[in-house]
């Protein structure tokens, strides 16, 4: 198996604090990694660095053996679903307009319909983006991320505005993408139960990497689980 992602000695310093301190881990192709950690643990900084939005780090980040500071090709390999898709509420774009934005090869129109069908939002394709519910929006942004057939999907789990039914659907979509299509998934989440059900690897981040390994090992370690469920509970309360 190839290394889909390889992070070595990643350190990000802000004027007062180290947001990330010497973080190293590897994600193999086909892995489903759940990243957990309390608020301010550096999850966003980690994602921003991986996505090329923050370049002020030391250490290296590689996608499929390519250093992202040296090769721009990695943009084609990753799909990204933001935690809170921000846009002007009255932006005149339909669901298919938004998915089309993600499409690099514009002649590939069929791909849009295909992906909308796969995510159960085909009937929404001509709706304006501002009229959708949180769960529908989340699926539209997954569709946008998937429309180029990325090998890696990076997701920031939304914490509010998504109903229970949509969450279940979201989980089953993730499971299918990973197990049937072999897409490597990196998923930041506050929901330990969900991580336990879905992910096969877990990374616990709190500025440094506390744990990284198979999820069974993590969930059989009561001390770690207790510590992180408290932390994530606090985060959960914070968001509500």
């Amino acid at each position, binding site marked *: 198996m190839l290394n889909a992602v390889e992070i070595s000695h990643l350190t990000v310093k802000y004027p007062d604090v180290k947001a990330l301190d010497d973080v190293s881990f590897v994600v193999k192709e086909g892995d489903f990694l759940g990243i957990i950690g309390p608020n301010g643990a550096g999850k966003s900084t980690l994602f921003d660095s991986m996505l090329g939005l923050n370049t002020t780090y030391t250490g290296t980040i590689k996608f499929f053996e390519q250093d992202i500071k040296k090769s721009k090709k990695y943009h*084609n390999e990753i799909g990204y679903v933001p935690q809170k898709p921000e846009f002007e509420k009255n932006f005149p774009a339909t669901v298919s*307009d938004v998915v089309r934005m993600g499409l690099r090869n514009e002649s590939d129109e069929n791909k849009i319909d295909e992906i909308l069908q796969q995510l159960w939002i085909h009937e929404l394709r001509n709706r*304006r983006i501002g009229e959708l519910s949180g769960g529908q929006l989340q699926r539209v942004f997954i569709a946008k991320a998937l429309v180029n057939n990325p090998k890696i999907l990076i997701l920031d789990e939304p914490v509010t505005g998504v109903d229970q039914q949509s969450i279940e659907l979201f989980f089953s979509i993730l499971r299918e993408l990973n197990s049937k299509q072999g897409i490597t998934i990196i998923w930041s989440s506050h929901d330990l139960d969900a991580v336990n059900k879905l992910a096969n690897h877990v990374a616990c981040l709190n500025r440094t990497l506390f744990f990284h390994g198979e999820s069974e090992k993590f969930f059989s370690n009561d001390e770690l689980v207790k510590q992180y469920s408290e932390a994530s509970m606090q985060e959960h309360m914070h968001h509500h």
Partner: protein
Amino acid sequence: MSFEILTYSFMHRALISGVAIAILCSVIGLFLVLRRYSLFGDALAHSSFGGIALGLFAGVYPLWTAYGVSILSALIITKIKDRYNISGDASIAVLLSSGIAAGLVIISFSGGFSIDIFSFLFGSILLISVNDTVLILTLTGGILIVILLLYRQLLYSTFNEEQAKVSGIPVEKINYLIIFMAGLTVVTSIQLVGVLLISALFVIPNVTAIMYGRGFKQTAIISISFSVFSVLSGILISYIFDITPAGTIVLFSIGLLGATIGIKSLGLLSKN
């Protein structure tokens, strides 16, 4: 009332240039409005006033100096805004007042206002020359081609800069390109409605169209239609009643916006 006016060649030039400018302003304006840059057209126009004064003072064709000054100052102010983290509306205010201030000082050096200045302030579409018409058509064609070629990049970076960056779009370059094209558009449009009313062409048809359109292309087409309608009616009606074309065009445009708000508030315009 006869159709005689449609046989005059100055009227042909006015109508053709007017339609081209209407299309151009709608399309560029839609990107600016959605980027919350609605007043940027105004700022560019006011800074071009400095350029026009400079041209009149130096004996150069004023629109050439206007192109130079407005595009250059727009790019500089954007650079300063990004570097020093000045908010968008404040940077627009700086750009707007510095153009007028420089223009006023230059004019007072050259001995005060002349009739030329007024035609740039309020537009002079009926006096447009063949050369100007050709220039307007060329620029319109060129800018529309660039927009079509870079459509996805322009739309995506307007929708959400961060996500556009993640998918590898050179967002910063695209932003400068939009500002550059807006600068060209503003100076080109001065002849139609003048410095003082340009932002109306950028903003009003788009604000109206956003209330109707669902998708982006549909909204752009609606905006272009409203804008072309306002410009054509404005030019013709103003000629017939011997009133100012610039003001008439903008009032037509505002009329369409008012009617749309009326229709909406009566609940006649369904959301879907």
